């Protein structure tokens, strides 16, 4: 059975005055095409009902009221309350992957090169697991990655902790923690996370005293590969705010 083309169905839906006999006959016997025509007619009917009734913008005060009511909630800049939930910047979509890769390749060196964090050794004082824990949120909610990060000052040193639950780390890969700015144009490598149990990865890092956390305000955890490339792989798993 040959179905009418889309144009013929539009014709059938809209021109009630001279229906095409062939199309009419087809429609009587074909529920699929009939449903299509009904949907088109329904659309036209709705459009007619809305004819010459312009939609009305709310007055500008409404937006001001939204901003007023949300108050500091809406301010996720560096001045936001440090105890607030982590703000996560996300890769806008998969196709942005190469962009981040490019950004990672253009890492602006801090203090003369890609920064490398100092990982705490076993002799260091005990650091709480994640003081003031801020959630790390998975960029792909389907990945099941969850975690937290926290910043503490112990003995005059700023110590950042990162913990992530994630099972799907590929063989030959590891997880690495980074600090980055909002646009992922500046990166600071904190270091690799260590497997701290089944599917659990943790890291504790001493931050240099002059590391500008107001700029590098986002903690990022990426999947890295032992490929000799020290840059960010572009495969970010989760992010949270470093506060």
């Amino acid at each position, binding site marked *: 059975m040959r179905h009418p083309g*889309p*144009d013929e169905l*539009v*014709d059938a839906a*809209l*021109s009630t*005055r*001279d229906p095409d006999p062939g199309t009419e006959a087809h429609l009587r016997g074909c529920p699929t095409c009939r449903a299509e025509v009904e*949907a*088109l007619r*329904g*659309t*036209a009917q*709705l*459009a*007619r*009902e*809305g*004819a*010459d*009734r*312009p*939609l*009305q*913008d*709310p*007055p500008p*005060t*409404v*937006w001001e*009221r*939204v901003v007023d*009511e*949300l108050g500091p*909630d*809406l*301010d*996720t800049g560096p001045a936001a309350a440090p105890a607030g939930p982590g*703000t*996560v*910047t*996300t890769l*806008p*979509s998969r196709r942005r992957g190469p962009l981040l890769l490019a950004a990672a390749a253009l890492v602006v060196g801090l203090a003369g090169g890609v920064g490398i964090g100092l990982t705490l050794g076993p002799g260091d004082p005990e650091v709480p697991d994640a003081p003031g824990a801020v959630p790390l949120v998975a960029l792909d909610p389907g990945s099941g990655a969850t975690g937290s990060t926290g910043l503490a000052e112990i003995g005059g040193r700023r110590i950042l902790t990162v913990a992530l639950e994630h099972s799907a780390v590929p063989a030959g890969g590891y997880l690495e923690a980074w600090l980055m700015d909002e646009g992922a144009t500046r990166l600071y490598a904190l270091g690799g996370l260590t497997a701290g149990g089944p599917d659990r990865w943790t890291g504790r890092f001493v931050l240099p005293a002059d590391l500008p956390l107001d700029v590098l305000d986002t903690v990022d955890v990426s999947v890295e590969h032992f490929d000799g490339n020290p840059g960010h792989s572009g495969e970010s798993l989760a992010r949270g705010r470093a506060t």
Partner: protein
Amino acid sequence: MTEILPPGPPREPGSAADPGRLPSPVTGSTGSAAAEGPDGEIALRLRAGDPEALRLAYDRHARVVHTVALRVLQSHHDAEDVTQQVFVRAWRGRGSFDPERGGLAPWLLGITRRQIADRLALRERERAAAEGAARAGPPPPVGPRPEQVLDVVVVADELDRLPETQRRVVRLAFYDDLTQQQISSVTGLPLGTVKSHLRRGVDRMRRRWEAGGAAPGA
């Protein structure tokens, strides 16, 4: 009814005399972008906590939210309250937005429907209380049904967002009941062009209706 163009030399699309034309959406001025394009980007940024994304969502959708609320509730005060609450809740509830389940517009309109329903329920409670529970009869007739209003408004909004020529062809077909052949002679556009404009325009409006109109529980 809007204008019926006299047969004769075609007018340029976008020429001045188009009195029935509605203004372009604030940020949808390109008109060519399907709802899901920029909305997809805005939705991701919103979920990620980018305040600018809330502003963009507001610019694109506050008009529809406000119009639906105004037509159902028939009160400027209540419509403005609902619009405010929809975007406040969109921000606070951004973590619950699931792009897999539908676009940004249906999500916002789902919040809108619940806000309107709450407002209607409140009015009903106040009315019943005022009359005394024992004497409360059937609810008085209120505005038009929310679902119906919503469908009409989203279709009208999508028509507004169509590219100029497409919109013109669709309006001539829908409002002025011209055949595609008549539209062709009235506009001077080749018949094939009229057909493809009409098909694409109607298709977009229909998809918007089906996706964004009355998606239950969106």
